[in-house]
């Protein structure tokens, strides 16, 4: 165990942890309650949906199907035909900067903030 680490290992670890903490701080501080869910398919916007309306969105493309459920102000991928099911396991999201990505089906759900989003209220 004694020769398992060298001095440079600890220096590198400390630097990386500091960078990690700084990045976490940036992403936590810039997050706020979202107003809209933007669904992107293959890099193009498929649709924008208000988080205040409970609804289910079905995305079908090239034989792949993804179902996104909006409920109580948060969005969740409730069904996907993809193999790894990472998107379904991500769970519900509601803050800006949050996203659900289904890489195999190339479907992405992102949360956007309320700026200019008065239509959600009006």
């Amino acid at each position, binding site marked *: 165990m004694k*020769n*398992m*680490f*060298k001095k*440079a*290992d600890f220096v*590198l*670890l400390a630097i*990386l*942890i500091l*960078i*990690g*903490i700084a*990045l*976490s701080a940036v*992403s936590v501080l810039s997050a706020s309650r979202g107003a809209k869910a933007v669904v*992107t398919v293959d*890099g193009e916007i498929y649709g924008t949906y208000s988080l205040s309306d409970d609804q289910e969105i079905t995305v079908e493309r090239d034989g792949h199907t993804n179902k996104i459920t909006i409920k109580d102000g948060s969005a969740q991928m409730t069904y996907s035909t993809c*193999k*790894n099911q*990472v998107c379904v*396991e*991500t*769970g519900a999201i509601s803050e800006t*900067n*949050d*996203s659900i*990505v289904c*890489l*195999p089906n*190339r479907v*992405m759900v*992102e949360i956007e903030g309320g700026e200019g989003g008065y239509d959600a209220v009006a």
Partner: protein
Amino acid sequence: MQWHSRTRRIAVSAMFAALAFIFSYIEAILPLSTGIPGVKLGIANLVVILALYNMNFRYAMGINVIRILVAGLLFNGLFGALYSLAGGVVSLTVMWLLKRTGLFSMAGVSMAGGLAHNMGQLLVASALVSNLKMFVYLPVLMFSGIAAGILIGITASVVNGRVPKDVFAK
């Protein structure tokens, strides 16, 4: 003697690729899913690190690429294989460069490799879905990569001390 040694290294590489593949398989069937894409232990990298230290960069890269292509296509499909490949190549290259400096231990090299693996995957993933917003995963992937890398690195240095060196043939 030269030829004998080279043949032997190829045979050892094939065996290592098979071993790395089995580790990928074990990891794929273990119910350790964290729900966050990319957060995993990467047991197969144990084999790749041992190859990097006992053979050389080229053999380690060969083992790595074969393992990723076979395991990726079988367990994750084409896109899965593609971004695993990016992670694997970036990770091994970083480990090779750090090892060459002579400043880091095996655990330190592995730690940087774990981190580089996740960064490489994230880059390709964000290119595939053409959106840089995926970088919100960055801090999580950074810490998980570092932790997994250190664990694998410690295991690798323990194993490295016990594998008879004549296995690799000089």
